[in-house]
């Protein structure tokens, strides 16, 4: 009996310490972590907008963001619009949807007049490296630049086709060997990106 009580007490004391130490550490790093998150979002937005110079330091990122971007909300969805001092008129928004292996998240920047894509980046995904993971590669993302999106069309806004099969201006090459991921990207544009553009249409500024 005593042995069992001893074991239980030991475990309880140990658990208390093993919870307290990480909890304290978490508290003390909380602000730092939040700073990182914010910096990450800002960097992603600026990258999608293509107004981020190479090798930008965190200070530069925060600086450029503060000068060039304002945050807007439409129907609960966050949009980032460029200020007049940015010299280009762009609107960016976060996108997200199911991928094959996990959620895919990213940022898309468009011209608010034409809905032409300025930049696309994928910030988070769990796709297979070398296959679906290739959505991160420049050649893939660059394909989307200058595509004109039409949120009112009945057809898919963007189609991912097997290389060599492109016919429409809004067709891009899918990734060979990653049919599922490619499909998910197409759905992502058709659902989430379309929804964002429709919100833009309703409330242009």
């Amino acid at each position: 009996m005593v042995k069992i009580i001893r074991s239980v007490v030991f475990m309880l004391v140990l658990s208390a310490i093993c919870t307290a130490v990480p909890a304290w550490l978490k508290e003390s790093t909380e602000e730092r972590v939040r700073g990182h998150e914010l910096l990450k979002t800002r960097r992603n937005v600026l990258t999608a907008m293509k107004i981020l110079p190479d090798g930008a330091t965190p200070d530069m990122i925060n600086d450029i963001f503060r000068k060039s971007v304002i945050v807007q909300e439409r129907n609960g969805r966050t949009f980032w619009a460029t200020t007049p001092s940015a010299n280009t008129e762009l609107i960016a928004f976060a996108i997200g949807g199911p991928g094959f292996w996990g959620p895919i998240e990213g940022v898309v920047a468009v011209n608010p007049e034409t809905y032409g894509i300025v930049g696309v980046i994928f910030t988070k995904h769990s796709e297979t490296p070398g296959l679906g993971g290739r959505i991160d590669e420049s050649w893939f993302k660059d394909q989307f630049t200058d595509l004109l999106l039409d949120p009112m069309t009945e057809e898919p806004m963007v189609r991912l086709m097997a290389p060599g099969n492109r016919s429409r201006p809004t067709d891009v090459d899918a990734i060979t060997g990653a049919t599922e991921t490619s499909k998910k990207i197409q759905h992502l544009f058709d659902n989430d990106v379309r929804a964002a553009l429709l919100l833009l249409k309703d409330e242009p500024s």
Partner: protein
Amino acid sequence: MNGSTGSALVIFFAAVFTNNIVLTNFLGMCSFLSVSRAVKSSIGLGWAVVFVMTTTSGINWLVYHHILVPLDLVFLRFAVFIVVIAGFVQFVEIIMERFTPALYFALGIFLPLITVNCAVLGVALFMVIRDYSFLESVGYGLGGGLGFLVAITILAALRWRIRKSKVIPALQGAGISVILAGIMALGFVAFSGMISIN
């Protein structure tokens, strides 16, 4: 994330073939390499892993979404998950020893081995990262376990087949097993284009 049965099935098949947890995600390697010495033990361990992995995936999902998240204790997930797994395995051991002693002796030593099998913990961590629904998590656990079973059985069979072959001394044992696993991994990469849903 869509939580339909359809996606749970896809995740299930993917975990067995295209993203086999052992051959693609490198989980469960230690027991994979040591137990594959004998085909019988491999099958035994494999099934034990299937059982533990499927159940603990479900339990850990519940614990994560209904206890850790609401109480803002997500940072403790590593400790909590492993305790759940260790606790579950201990619990199963006690039950088996009491009610199915024959099965207990057959599987006996494998159960504690599973607690530290990184595959079981790994599956729980991946399911959190990928934001799976309950059904998808259980599907992933089941698929992961079966994937492990398939991989370890094949490796055991291969090692049995080459037992009479002249493997150079420097590669005997672990060396050749690892290379065999590499060839298996190559083969499984070929499954990549297989899964497709409409």
